[in-house]
Protein backbone atom coordinates (compact mmCIF):
# COMPACT_ATOMS: atom_id res chain seq x y z
CA UNK A 1 0.00 0.00 0.00
CA UNK A 2 2.67 2.46 -0.82
CA UNK A 3 1.31 3.47 -4.20
CA UNK A 4 3.04 6.59 -5.42
CA UNK A 5 1.41 8.89 -7.91
CA UNK A 6 3.84 7.83 -10.60
CA UNK A 7 3.19 4.10 -10.17
CA UNK A 8 2.08 2.45 -13.36
CA UNK A 9 -1.47 1.26 -13.26
CA UNK A 10 -0.62 -2.39 -13.78
CA UNK A 11 2.82 -2.22 -12.17
CA UNK A 12 1.52 -3.95 -9.07
CA UNK A 13 1.13 -7.19 -11.01
CA UNK A 14 4.91 -7.48 -11.03
CA UNK A 15 5.35 -7.01 -7.31
CA UNK A 16 6.87 -9.83 -5.24
CA UNK A 17 4.04 -9.44 -2.74
CA UNK A 18 1.82 -11.05 -5.38
CA UNK A 19 4.01 -13.50 -7.20
CA UNK A 20 6.00 -14.80 -4.24
CA UNK A 21 3.05 -16.60 -2.59
CA UNK A 22 1.73 -17.68 -5.99
CA UNK A 23 5.12 -19.04 -7.03
CA UNK A 24 5.33 -20.90 -3.72
CA UNK A 25 1.94 -22.55 -4.22
CA UNK A 26 2.43 -23.24 -7.94
CA UNK A 27 5.95 -24.59 -7.34
CA UNK A 28 4.67 -27.07 -4.77
CA UNK A 29 1.63 -27.76 -6.90
CA UNK A 30 3.48 -29.11 -9.93
CA UNK A 31 5.51 -31.67 -7.94
CA UNK A 32 2.82 -34.38 -7.85
CA UNK A 33 1.97 -33.62 -11.47
CA UNK A 34 5.56 -34.38 -12.43
CA UNK A 35 6.13 -37.33 -10.11
CA UNK A 36 2.59 -38.68 -10.44
CA UNK A 37 2.59 -39.45 -6.73
CA UNK A 38 -0.96 -39.96 -5.45
CA UNK A 39 0.10 -39.72 -1.80
CA UNK A 40 1.75 -36.39 -2.35
CA UNK A 41 -1.25 -35.20 -4.35
CA UNK A 42 -3.61 -36.02 -1.50
CA UNK A 43 -1.33 -34.36 1.02
CA UNK A 44 -1.08 -31.22 -1.09
CA UNK A 45 -4.83 -31.18 -1.74
CA UNK A 46 -5.36 -30.77 1.99
CA UNK A 47 -2.53 -28.28 2.29
CA UNK A 48 -3.87 -26.07 -0.52
CA UNK A 49 -7.35 -26.38 0.86
CA UNK A 50 -6.14 -24.97 4.17
CA UNK A 51 -4.15 -22.24 2.41
CA UNK A 52 -7.29 -21.18 0.56
CA UNK A 53 -9.45 -21.35 3.70
CA UNK A 54 -6.91 -19.36 5.72
CA UNK A 55 -6.38 -16.77 2.97
CA UNK A 56 -10.10 -16.24 2.58
CA UNK A 57 -10.59 -15.92 6.34
CA UNK A 58 -7.75 -13.41 6.33
CA UNK A 59 -9.85 -10.98 4.28
CA UNK A 60 -12.27 -10.82 7.20
CA UNK A 61 -9.96 -11.50 10.15
CA UNK A 62 -6.75 -9.91 8.94
CA UNK A 63 -7.96 -6.99 6.85
CA UNK A 64 -11.24 -6.09 8.51
CA UNK A 65 -10.41 -7.16 12.06
CA UNK A 66 -13.46 -9.37 12.65
CA UNK A 67 -12.64 -12.70 14.29
CA UNK A 68 -14.95 -15.40 12.96
CA UNK A 69 -15.11 -18.77 14.69
CA UNK A 70 -17.57 -19.98 12.10
CA UNK A 71 -15.61 -19.68 8.88
CA UNK A 72 -16.08 -23.40 8.27
CA UNK A 73 -19.85 -22.88 7.93
CA UNK A 74 -19.24 -21.61 4.40
CA UNK A 75 -17.21 -24.70 3.55
CA UNK A 76 -20.03 -26.82 4.96
CA UNK A 77 -22.98 -25.10 3.31
CA UNK A 78 -21.14 -24.84 -0.01
CA UNK A 79 -20.20 -28.51 0.27
CA UNK A 80 -23.77 -29.54 0.96
CA UNK A 81 -25.36 -27.47 -1.79
CA UNK A 82 -22.73 -28.61 -4.31
CA UNK A 83 -23.01 -32.22 -3.21
CA UNK A 84 -26.78 -32.10 -3.56
CA UNK A 85 -26.40 -30.58 -7.04
CA UNK A 86 -24.04 -33.42 -8.00
CA UNK A 87 -25.88 -36.36 -6.50
CA UNK A 88 -29.54 -35.42 -6.73
CA UNK A 89 -29.61 -32.97 -9.64
CA UNK A 90 -26.73 -34.58 -11.57
CA UNK A 91 -25.13 -31.24 -12.37
CA UNK A 92 -21.59 -31.22 -13.73
CA UNK A 93 -18.85 -30.49 -11.17
CA UNK A 94 -18.13 -26.97 -12.43
CA UNK A 95 -21.75 -25.94 -12.08
CA UNK A 96 -22.05 -27.63 -8.67
CA UNK A 97 -18.91 -25.81 -7.52
CA UNK A 98 -20.41 -22.48 -8.60
CA UNK A 99 -23.65 -23.34 -6.82
CA UNK A 100 -21.67 -24.11 -3.65
CA UNK A 101 -19.80 -20.81 -3.86
CA UNK A 102 -23.00 -18.91 -4.52
CA UNK A 103 -24.76 -20.59 -1.59
CA UNK A 104 -21.91 -19.65 0.75
CA UNK A 105 -21.91 -16.07 -0.55
CA UNK A 106 -25.67 -15.77 -0.12
CA UNK A 107 -25.48 -17.12 3.42
CA UNK A 108 -22.82 -14.52 4.23
CA UNK A 109 -24.95 -11.80 2.68
CA UNK A 110 -28.03 -12.90 4.59
CA UNK A 111 -26.43 -13.16 8.03
CA UNK A 112 -23.77 -10.49 7.49
CA UNK A 113 -26.09 -7.52 7.75
CA UNK A 114 -27.11 -8.54 11.25
CA UNK A 115 -24.04 -10.19 12.80
CA UNK A 116 -21.59 -7.61 11.47
CA UNK A 117 -23.28 -5.04 13.70
CA UNK A 118 -21.69 -6.92 16.58
CA UNK A 119 -18.11 -6.29 17.49
CA UNK A 120 -15.30 -8.21 19.15
CA UNK A 121 -16.30 -11.18 21.26
CA UNK A 122 -19.99 -10.73 20.42
CA UNK A 123 -19.32 -11.17 16.72
CA UNK A 124 -17.09 -14.18 17.41
CA UNK A 125 -19.85 -15.80 19.48
CA UNK A 126 -22.47 -15.09 16.83
CA UNK A 127 -20.38 -16.77 14.11
CA UNK A 128 -19.96 -19.76 16.40
CA UNK A 129 -23.74 -19.84 16.76
CA UNK A 130 -24.33 -19.69 13.01
CA UNK A 131 -22.13 -22.72 12.43
CA UNK A 132 -23.85 -24.73 15.16
CA UNK A 133 -27.29 -23.65 13.94
CA UNK A 134 -26.55 -24.64 10.34
CA UNK A 135 -25.18 -27.98 11.49
CA UNK A 136 -28.33 -28.62 13.51
CA UNK A 137 -30.51 -27.55 10.60
CA UNK A 138 -28.73 -29.74 8.05
CA UNK A 139 -28.80 -32.70 10.47
CA UNK A 140 -32.58 -32.48 10.38
CA UNK A 141 -33.05 -31.54 6.75
CA UNK A 142 -34.45 -34.48 4.77
CA UNK A 143 -33.25 -33.60 1.25
CA UNK A 144 -29.65 -33.37 2.53
CA UNK A 145 -29.89 -36.81 4.15
CA UNK A 146 -30.35 -35.58 7.72
CA UNK A 147 -27.83 -36.91 10.25
CA UNK A 148 -26.43 -39.59 7.92
CA UNK A 149 -25.70 -37.15 5.09
CA UNK A 150 -25.37 -38.14 1.45
CA UNK A 151 -23.14 -40.37 -0.65
CA UNK A 152 -22.14 -40.11 -4.27
CA UNK A 153 -22.92 -42.98 -6.56
CA UNK A 154 -19.53 -44.28 -7.62
CA UNK A 155 -20.63 -44.20 -11.26
CA UNK A 156 -20.60 -40.41 -11.17
CA UNK A 157 -16.79 -40.42 -11.46
CA UNK A 158 -17.10 -42.18 -14.81
CA UNK A 159 -18.19 -38.87 -16.29
CA UNK A 160 -14.75 -37.49 -15.37
CA UNK A 161 -12.73 -40.37 -16.84
CA UNK A 162 -12.84 -42.63 -13.79
CA UNK A 163 -12.07 -42.11 -10.07
CA UNK A 164 -8.34 -41.46 -10.60
CA UNK A 165 -8.99 -38.74 -13.13
CA UNK A 166 -11.64 -37.25 -10.88
CA UNK A 167 -9.12 -37.01 -8.06
CA UNK A 168 -6.66 -35.24 -10.34
CA UNK A 169 -9.40 -32.91 -11.52
CA UNK A 170 -10.25 -31.99 -7.92
CA UNK A 171 -6.57 -31.42 -7.27
CA UNK A 172 -6.11 -29.07 -10.23
CA UNK A 173 -9.25 -27.21 -9.26
CA UNK A 174 -8.14 -26.68 -5.68
CA UNK A 175 -4.71 -25.58 -6.90
CA UNK A 176 -6.29 -23.06 -9.27
CA UNK A 177 -8.60 -21.80 -6.55
CA UNK A 178 -5.72 -21.36 -4.16
CA UNK A 179 -3.85 -19.22 -6.68
CA UNK A 180 -7.07 -17.29 -7.28
CA UNK A 181 -7.69 -16.61 -3.61
CA UNK A 182 -4.12 -15.36 -3.19
CA UNK A 183 -4.55 -13.03 -6.16
CA UNK A 184 -7.88 -11.77 -4.80
CA UNK A 185 -6.40 -11.30 -1.36
CA UNK A 186 -3.54 -9.28 -2.86
CA UNK A 187 -5.80 -7.21 -5.12
CA UNK A 188 -8.10 -6.38 -2.19
CA UNK A 189 -5.18 -5.31 -0.05
CA UNK A 190 -3.93 -2.91 -2.70
CA UNK A 191 -7.33 -1.47 -3.54
CA UNK A 192 -9.35 1.44 -2.24
CA UNK A 193 -11.84 -1.09 -0.88
CA UNK A 194 -8.98 -2.78 1.00
CA UNK A 195 -7.80 0.52 2.45
CA UNK A 196 -11.32 0.99 3.77
CA UNK A 197 -11.24 -2.49 5.34
CA UNK A 198 -7.87 -1.84 6.99
CA UNK A 199 -9.14 1.42 8.43
CA UNK A 200 -12.18 -0.41 9.84
CA UNK A 201 -9.80 -2.88 11.47
CA UNK A 202 -7.81 -0.07 13.07
CA UNK A 203 -10.74 2.01 14.33
CA UNK A 204 -14.19 1.45 12.92
CA UNK A 205 -15.78 4.61 14.33
CA UNK A 206 -12.92 6.82 13.16
CA UNK A 207 -13.11 5.14 9.74
CA UNK A 208 -16.82 5.94 9.42
CA UNK A 209 -16.17 9.55 10.35
CA UNK A 210 -13.53 9.65 7.62
CA UNK A 211 -16.23 8.54 5.19
CA UNK A 212 -15.79 4.76 5.04
CA UNK A 213 -19.17 3.09 4.54
CA UNK A 214 -18.39 0.47 7.14
CA UNK A 215 -21.61 -1.59 7.01
CA UNK A 216 -21.47 -2.23 3.27
CA UNK A 217 -17.68 -2.64 3.22
CA UNK A 218 -17.81 -5.22 6.00
CA UNK A 219 -20.62 -7.12 4.30
CA UNK A 220 -18.67 -7.15 1.03
CA UNK A 221 -15.60 -8.48 2.84
CA UNK A 222 -17.70 -11.13 4.57
CA UNK A 223 -19.26 -12.30 1.29
CA UNK A 224 -15.90 -12.29 -0.47
CA UNK A 225 -14.34 -14.36 2.29
CA UNK A 226 -17.23 -16.86 2.12
CA UNK A 227 -17.39 -17.68 -1.59
CA UNK A 228 -14.07 -19.53 -1.96
CA UNK A 229 -14.64 -21.82 1.06
CA UNK A 230 -18.01 -22.67 -0.48
CA UNK A 231 -16.36 -23.81 -3.71
CA UNK A 232 -13.61 -25.65 -1.82
CA UNK A 233 -16.27 -27.51 0.15
CA UNK A 234 -17.80 -28.84 -3.09
CA UNK A 235 -14.39 -30.07 -4.32
CA UNK A 236 -13.51 -31.67 -1.00
CA UNK A 237 -16.74 -33.63 -0.68
CA UNK A 238 -16.79 -34.51 -4.37
CA UNK A 239 -13.40 -36.13 -3.83
CA UNK A 240 -14.55 -37.64 -0.53
CA UNK A 241 -17.63 -39.26 -2.04
CA UNK A 242 -19.81 -38.65 0.99
CA UNK A 243 -20.83 -35.77 3.23
CA UNK A 244 -22.06 -35.75 6.83
CA UNK A 245 -22.90 -32.85 9.14
CA UNK A 246 -19.98 -33.37 11.56
CA UNK A 247 -17.49 -33.34 8.67
CA UNK A 248 -19.00 -30.33 6.96
CA UNK A 249 -19.41 -28.06 9.99
CA UNK A 250 -16.37 -29.06 12.04
CA UNK A 251 -15.77 -26.39 14.65
CA UNK A 252 -12.28 -27.73 15.24
CA UNK A 253 -11.28 -26.86 11.68
CA UNK A 254 -12.70 -23.37 12.12
CA UNK A 255 -10.42 -22.82 15.08
CA UNK A 256 -7.45 -24.33 13.28
CA UNK A 257 -7.92 -21.89 10.39
CA UNK A 258 -7.68 -19.01 12.84
CA UNK A 259 -4.47 -20.52 14.24
CA UNK A 260 -3.09 -20.72 10.69
CA UNK A 261 -3.83 -17.07 9.95
CA UNK A 262 -2.36 -15.96 13.26
CA UNK A 263 0.69 -18.18 12.86
CA UNK A 264 1.58 -16.85 9.43
CA UNK A 265 0.61 -13.26 10.09
CA UNK A 266 -2.86 -11.75 9.84
CA UNK A 267 -3.42 -8.96 7.38
CA UNK A 268 -0.58 -10.07 5.09
CA UNK A 269 -0.99 -11.94 1.80
CA UNK A 270 1.87 -14.37 2.35
CA UNK A 271 1.13 -14.96 6.05
CA UNK A 272 -1.90 -17.26 5.73
CA UNK A 273 -0.06 -19.24 3.02
CA UNK A 274 2.95 -19.85 5.27
CA UNK A 275 0.77 -20.32 8.35
CA UNK A 276 -1.56 -22.84 6.72
CA UNK A 277 1.29 -24.79 5.15
CA UNK A 278 3.29 -24.79 8.39
CA UNK A 279 0.39 -25.74 10.59
CA UNK A 280 -0.87 -28.43 8.20
CA UNK A 281 2.57 -30.05 8.06
CA UNK A 282 2.81 -29.95 11.85
CA UNK A 283 -0.64 -31.46 12.15
CA UNK A 284 0.07 -34.27 9.70
CA UNK A 285 3.23 -35.05 11.58
CA UNK A 286 1.42 -35.12 14.93
CA UNK A 287 -1.43 -37.24 13.59
CA UNK A 288 0.96 -39.89 12.33
CA UNK A 289 3.27 -39.99 15.34
CA UNK A 290 1.90 -42.15 18.12
CA UNK A 291 2.70 -40.14 21.25
CA UNK A 292 0.98 -37.01 19.89
CA UNK A 293 -1.97 -38.52 18.04
CA UNK A 294 -4.51 -37.62 20.70
CA UNK A 295 -2.91 -34.31 21.57
CA UNK A 296 -3.25 -32.55 18.22
CA UNK A 297 -5.78 -29.94 19.38
CA UNK A 298 -3.90 -29.34 22.60
CA UNK A 299 -0.86 -28.53 20.54
CA UNK A 300 -2.91 -26.20 18.32
CA UNK A 301 -3.97 -24.37 21.46
CA UNK A 302 -0.42 -24.11 22.72
CA UNK A 303 0.74 -22.85 19.31
CA UNK A 304 -1.94 -20.14 19.34
CA UNK A 305 -0.99 -19.14 22.87
CA UNK A 306 2.69 -18.90 21.96
CA UNK A 307 1.91 -16.81 18.86
CA UNK A 308 -0.26 -14.36 20.77
CA UNK A 309 2.32 -14.07 23.55
CA UNK A 310 5.48 -13.82 21.51
CA UNK A 311 4.75 -13.01 17.87
CA UNK A 312 1.29 -11.41 17.83
CA UNK A 313 1.79 -10.35 14.22
CA UNK A 314 2.69 -13.88 13.12
CA UNK A 315 5.76 -15.08 11.27
CA UNK A 316 5.48 -12.68 8.32
CA UNK A 317 4.47 -9.78 10.54
CA UNK A 318 7.46 -10.48 12.75
CA UNK A 319 9.86 -10.53 9.80
CA UNK A 320 8.34 -7.33 8.40
CA UNK A 321 8.81 -5.65 11.76
CA UNK A 322 12.40 -6.86 12.08
CA UNK A 323 13.56 -6.18 8.55
CA UNK A 324 11.75 -3.09 7.24
CA UNK A 325 13.56 -3.52 3.91
CA UNK A 326 11.42 -6.60 3.26
CA UNK A 327 8.16 -4.69 3.75
CA UNK A 328 7.56 -4.26 0.04
CA UNK A 329 8.57 -7.87 -0.70
CA UNK A 330 6.47 -9.62 1.93
CA UNK A 331 3.01 -8.20 1.74
Amino acid at each position, binding site marked *: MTASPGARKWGWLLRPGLWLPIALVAGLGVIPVVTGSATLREGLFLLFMYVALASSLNILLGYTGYVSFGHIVFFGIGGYVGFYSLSALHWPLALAALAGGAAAGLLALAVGASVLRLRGAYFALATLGINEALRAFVSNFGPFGGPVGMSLDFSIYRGYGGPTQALWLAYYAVLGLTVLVIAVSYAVK*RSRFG*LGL*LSIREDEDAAMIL*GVRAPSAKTAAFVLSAVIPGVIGVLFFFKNGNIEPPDAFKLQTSIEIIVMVMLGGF*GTVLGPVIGAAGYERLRSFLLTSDPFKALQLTIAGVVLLLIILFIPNGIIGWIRGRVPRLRSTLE
Partner: protein
Amino acid sequence: MTLALSVEDVSKRFGGLQALAQVSFDVEDGQILGLIGPNGAGKTTLFNILNAVYAPDAGRIVFRGREIRGLRPYDVARLGMARTHQIVRPLNELTVRENVMVGACFGRRALGLTDAAARSDETMELVGLHDRAGQLAATLNVAQKKRLALGRALAADPDLLLLDDVLAGLNPAEITAMLETIREVRGKGVTIVIIEHVMHALMNVSDRVVALDYGRVIAQGTPTEVASDPAVVEAYLGDPKLAEGLGRATEDSHRG
Protein backbone atom coordinates in the same frame (compact mmCIF):
# COMPACT_ATOMS: atom_id res chain seq x y z
CA MET B 1 -22.99 35.73 3.01
CA THR B 2 -24.16 32.19 2.61
CA LEU B 3 -24.37 29.85 5.57
CA ALA B 4 -22.06 26.88 5.74
CA LEU B 5 -23.78 25.50 8.80
CA SER B 6 -26.88 26.29 10.72
CA VAL B 7 -27.63 24.79 14.12
CA GLU B 8 -31.25 25.29 15.16
CA ASP B 9 -32.55 24.58 18.67
CA VAL B 10 -30.51 21.41 19.09
CA SER B 11 -31.05 19.46 22.31
CA LYS B 12 -29.53 16.22 23.50
CA ARG B 13 -30.04 14.34 26.74
CA PHE B 14 -28.03 11.40 28.06
CA GLY B 15 -30.12 9.82 30.82
CA GLY B 16 -30.34 12.46 33.52
CA LEU B 17 -27.82 14.76 31.90
CA GLN B 18 -29.02 17.53 29.61
CA ALA B 19 -25.89 17.66 27.43
CA LEU B 20 -27.27 20.29 25.05
CA ALA B 21 -30.32 22.52 25.41
CA GLN B 22 -31.76 24.56 22.51
CA VAL B 23 -28.38 25.35 21.02
CA SER B 24 -28.61 27.66 18.02
CA PHE B 25 -25.95 29.41 15.98
CA ASP B 26 -24.89 29.90 12.38
CA VAL B 27 -21.52 29.66 10.70
CA GLU B 28 -20.94 31.73 7.60
CA ASP B 29 -18.99 30.40 4.66
CA GLY B 30 -15.24 30.79 5.05
CA GLN B 31 -15.39 31.79 8.70
CA ILE B 32 -13.61 30.38 11.71
CA LEU B 33 -16.02 29.88 14.56
CA GLY B 34 -14.56 29.23 18.01
CA LEU B 35 -16.49 27.09 20.46
CA ILE B 36 -15.60 27.64 24.13
CA GLY B 37 -16.92 26.49 27.45
CA PRO B 38 -15.76 24.79 30.64
CA ASN B 39 -15.23 21.02 30.68
CA GLY B 40 -18.52 19.21 30.25
CA ALA B 41 -20.23 22.18 28.61
CA GLY B 42 -21.27 19.97 25.67
CA LYS B 43 -18.77 21.04 22.99
CA THR B 44 -17.70 17.57 21.89
CA THR B 45 -21.28 16.32 22.11
CA LEU B 46 -22.21 19.11 19.73
CA PHE B 47 -19.52 17.94 17.30
CA ASN B 48 -20.81 14.40 17.57
CA ILE B 49 -24.26 15.63 16.62
CA LEU B 50 -22.95 17.79 13.78
CA ASN B 51 -21.34 14.84 12.05
CA ALA B 52 -24.16 12.41 12.85
CA VAL B 53 -22.40 10.21 15.39
CA TYR B 54 -25.41 10.97 17.61
CA ALA B 55 -28.87 12.05 16.53
CA PRO B 56 -30.21 15.11 18.36
CA ASP B 57 -33.34 14.66 20.49
CA ALA B 58 -34.75 17.88 19.08
CA GLY B 59 -33.76 20.62 16.68
CA ARG B 60 -32.04 20.41 13.33
CA ILE B 61 -28.69 20.85 11.67
CA VAL B 62 -28.50 22.24 8.15
CA PHE B 63 -25.17 21.78 6.41
CA ARG B 64 -24.84 23.64 3.12
CA GLY B 65 -28.60 23.67 2.65
CA ARG B 66 -29.03 20.03 3.53
CA GLU B 67 -30.48 18.64 6.73
CA ILE B 68 -28.26 16.14 8.57
CA ARG B 69 -31.11 14.17 10.16
CA GLY B 70 -31.12 10.48 9.31
CA LEU B 71 -27.62 10.47 7.84
CA ARG B 72 -24.73 8.34 9.06
CA PRO B 73 -21.26 9.77 9.82
CA TYR B 74 -19.91 8.51 6.45
CA ASP B 75 -22.72 10.27 4.58
CA VAL B 76 -21.85 13.51 6.31
CA ALA B 77 -18.18 13.00 5.45
CA ARG B 78 -19.13 12.54 1.78
CA LEU B 79 -21.13 15.76 1.91
CA GLY B 80 -17.96 17.60 2.87
CA MET B 81 -17.71 17.72 6.64
CA ALA B 82 -14.47 16.48 8.19
CA ARG B 83 -13.38 16.40 11.82
CA THR B 84 -10.58 15.64 14.22
CA HIS B 85 -11.02 14.11 17.66
CA GLN B 86 -10.13 15.48 21.05
CA ILE B 87 -8.35 12.21 21.79
CA VAL B 88 -6.38 11.40 18.65
CA ARG B 89 -7.46 8.28 16.83
CA PRO B 90 -4.73 7.38 14.35
CA LEU B 91 -5.09 4.16 12.37
CA ASN B 92 -2.07 2.77 14.19
CA GLU B 93 -0.94 -0.10 12.01
CA LEU B 94 -1.24 1.92 8.80
CA THR B 95 1.43 4.31 7.60
CA VAL B 96 1.07 8.07 7.81
CA ARG B 97 0.47 8.16 4.05
CA GLU B 98 -2.21 5.46 4.25
CA ASN B 99 -3.94 7.34 7.08
CA VAL B 100 -4.10 10.48 5.01
CA MET B 101 -5.16 8.48 1.93
CA VAL B 102 -8.19 7.16 3.84
CA GLY B 103 -9.33 10.75 4.19
CA ALA B 104 -8.75 11.43 0.50
CA CYS B 105 -10.36 8.19 -0.70
CA PHE B 106 -13.51 8.36 1.38
CA GLY B 107 -13.99 12.09 1.92
CA ARG B 108 -15.86 14.64 -0.13
CA ARG B 109 -14.03 13.97 -3.37
CA ALA B 110 -13.92 10.18 -2.99
CA LEU B 111 -10.70 9.89 -4.95
CA GLY B 112 -9.27 6.72 -6.46
CA LEU B 113 -6.03 5.33 -4.99
CA THR B 114 -3.64 7.04 -7.40
CA ASP B 115 -5.22 10.48 -7.04
CA ALA B 116 -5.53 9.92 -3.31
CA ALA B 117 -1.80 9.21 -3.08
CA ALA B 118 -1.04 12.48 -4.87
CA ARG B 119 -3.52 14.35 -2.71
CA SER B 120 -2.05 12.86 0.46
CA ASP B 121 1.47 13.89 -0.58
CA GLU B 122 0.25 17.50 -0.92
CA THR B 123 -1.59 17.33 2.38
CA MET B 124 1.34 15.81 4.28
CA GLU B 125 3.45 18.69 2.97
CA LEU B 126 0.88 21.18 4.27
CA VAL B 127 0.78 19.69 7.76
CA GLY B 128 4.50 19.00 7.82
CA LEU B 129 4.47 15.21 7.87
CA HIS B 130 5.93 14.54 4.41
CA ASP B 131 9.17 13.17 5.85
CA ARG B 132 7.21 10.65 7.91
CA ALA B 133 5.04 9.30 5.10
CA GLY B 134 6.22 5.70 5.34
CA GLN B 135 6.20 5.49 9.12
CA LEU B 136 3.47 3.65 11.02
CA ALA B 137 1.04 6.12 12.60
CA ALA B 138 1.54 4.41 15.98
CA THR B 139 5.15 5.62 16.06
CA LEU B 140 4.29 9.35 15.89
CA ASN B 141 4.45 11.60 18.95
CA VAL B 142 1.40 13.50 20.18
CA ALA B 143 2.09 16.67 18.19
CA GLN B 144 2.60 14.63 15.03
CA LYS B 145 -0.57 12.63 15.71
CA LYS B 146 -2.51 15.88 16.00
CA ARG B 147 -1.05 16.97 12.67
CA LEU B 148 -1.94 13.60 11.20
CA ALA B 149 -5.53 14.02 12.37
CA LEU B 150 -5.64 17.43 10.72
CA GLY B 151 -4.02 16.10 7.54
CA ARG B 152 -6.43 13.19 7.32
CA ALA B 153 -9.37 15.56 7.64
CA LEU B 154 -7.93 18.01 5.12
CA ALA B 155 -7.17 15.32 2.56
CA ALA B 156 -10.91 14.89 2.21
CA ASP B 157 -11.01 18.43 0.81
CA PRO B 158 -13.88 19.37 3.14
CA ASP B 159 -16.10 22.43 2.98
CA LEU B 160 -16.42 22.39 6.74
CA LEU B 161 -13.74 21.31 9.17
CA LEU B 162 -14.50 20.52 12.81
CA LEU B 163 -11.37 20.77 14.94
CA ASP B 164 -11.64 19.33 18.44
CA ASP B 165 -8.80 20.45 20.65
CA VAL B 166 -6.01 20.21 18.08
CA LEU B 167 -3.70 22.37 20.17
CA ALA B 168 -3.90 20.44 23.44
CA GLY B 169 -0.60 18.91 24.47
CA LEU B 170 1.43 21.01 22.07
CA ASN B 171 4.26 23.31 23.14
CA PRO B 172 4.14 27.05 22.29
CA ALA B 173 6.21 26.66 19.12
CA GLU B 174 4.03 23.80 17.91
CA ILE B 175 0.91 25.85 18.70
CA THR B 176 2.18 28.74 16.60
CA ALA B 177 2.93 26.38 13.71
CA MET B 178 -0.48 24.71 13.99
CA LEU B 179 -2.30 28.07 14.06
CA GLU B 180 -0.37 29.05 10.96
CA THR B 181 -1.59 25.86 9.26
CA ILE B 182 -5.18 26.52 10.35
CA ARG B 183 -5.08 30.04 8.91
CA GLU B 184 -3.62 28.65 5.71
CA VAL B 185 -6.48 26.17 5.50
CA ARG B 186 -9.03 28.94 5.99
CA GLY B 187 -7.24 30.84 3.24
CA LYS B 188 -8.23 28.02 0.93
CA GLY B 189 -11.89 28.76 1.64
CA VAL B 190 -12.56 26.03 4.21
CA THR B 191 -15.05 26.93 6.92
CA ILE B 192 -13.82 25.91 10.37
CA VAL B 193 -15.48 25.26 13.70
CA ILE B 194 -12.86 24.92 16.40
CA ILE B 195 -13.06 23.74 20.00
CA GLU B 196 -10.07 24.93 21.92
CA HIS B 197 -8.86 25.06 25.50
CA VAL B 198 -5.79 27.15 24.69
CA MET B 199 -7.85 30.29 25.08
CA HIS B 200 -5.59 33.02 23.73
CA ALA B 201 -4.95 30.94 20.62
CA LEU B 202 -8.65 30.43 20.02
CA MET B 203 -9.48 34.11 20.56
CA ASN B 204 -6.73 34.95 18.14
CA VAL B 205 -7.80 32.74 15.30
CA SER B 206 -11.61 32.93 15.51
CA ASP B 207 -13.84 35.37 13.62
CA ARG B 208 -16.72 34.63 15.93
CA VAL B 209 -17.04 32.76 19.20
CA VAL B 210 -19.89 30.79 20.75
CA ALA B 211 -19.70 30.07 24.49
CA LEU B 212 -21.45 27.04 25.96
CA ASP B 213 -22.09 26.25 29.59
CA TYR B 214 -24.12 23.28 30.86
CA GLY B 215 -25.28 22.68 27.32
CA ARG B 216 -26.63 26.17 26.73
CA VAL B 217 -25.32 28.99 24.59
CA ILE B 218 -24.47 31.69 27.11
CA ALA B 219 -22.89 34.16 24.70
CA GLN B 220 -21.95 34.58 21.07
CA GLY B 221 -20.28 37.33 19.07
CA THR B 222 -16.79 38.56 18.27
CA PRO B 223 -13.98 37.22 20.49
CA THR B 224 -13.81 40.54 22.36
CA GLU B 225 -17.55 40.65 23.00
CA VAL B 226 -17.67 37.08 24.25
CA ALA B 227 -14.59 37.38 26.45
CA SER B 228 -16.03 40.40 28.23
CA ASP B 229 -19.53 38.93 28.56
CA PRO B 230 -20.41 38.68 32.27
CA ALA B 231 -22.02 35.26 31.81
CA VAL B 232 -18.84 33.90 30.25
CA VAL B 233 -16.62 35.35 32.93
CA GLU B 234 -18.89 33.87 35.55
CA ALA B 235 -18.88 30.45 33.88
CA TYR B 236 -15.11 30.44 33.94
CA LEU B 237 -14.70 31.82 37.47
CA GLY B 238 -14.86 28.31 38.87
CA ASP B 239 -11.69 27.67 36.94
CA PRO B 240 -9.16 30.42 37.79
CA LYS B 241 -6.60 29.22 35.28
CA LEU B 242 -9.03 29.47 32.39
CA ALA B 243 -10.39 32.80 33.62
CA GLU B 244 -6.86 34.09 33.61
CA GLY B 245 -6.40 32.82 30.05
CA LEU B 246 -9.56 34.61 29.09
CA GLY B 247 -8.26 37.88 30.54
CA ARG B 248 -5.07 37.51 28.58
CA ALA B 249 -7.03 36.75 25.45
CA THR B 250 -9.02 39.96 25.83
CA GLU B 251 -5.83 41.97 26.13
CA ASP B 252 -4.44 40.16 23.10
CA SER B 253 -7.42 40.92 20.94
CA HIS B 254 -7.46 44.54 22.13
CA ARG B 255 -3.87 44.83 21.06
CA GLY B 256 -4.32 42.89 17.83
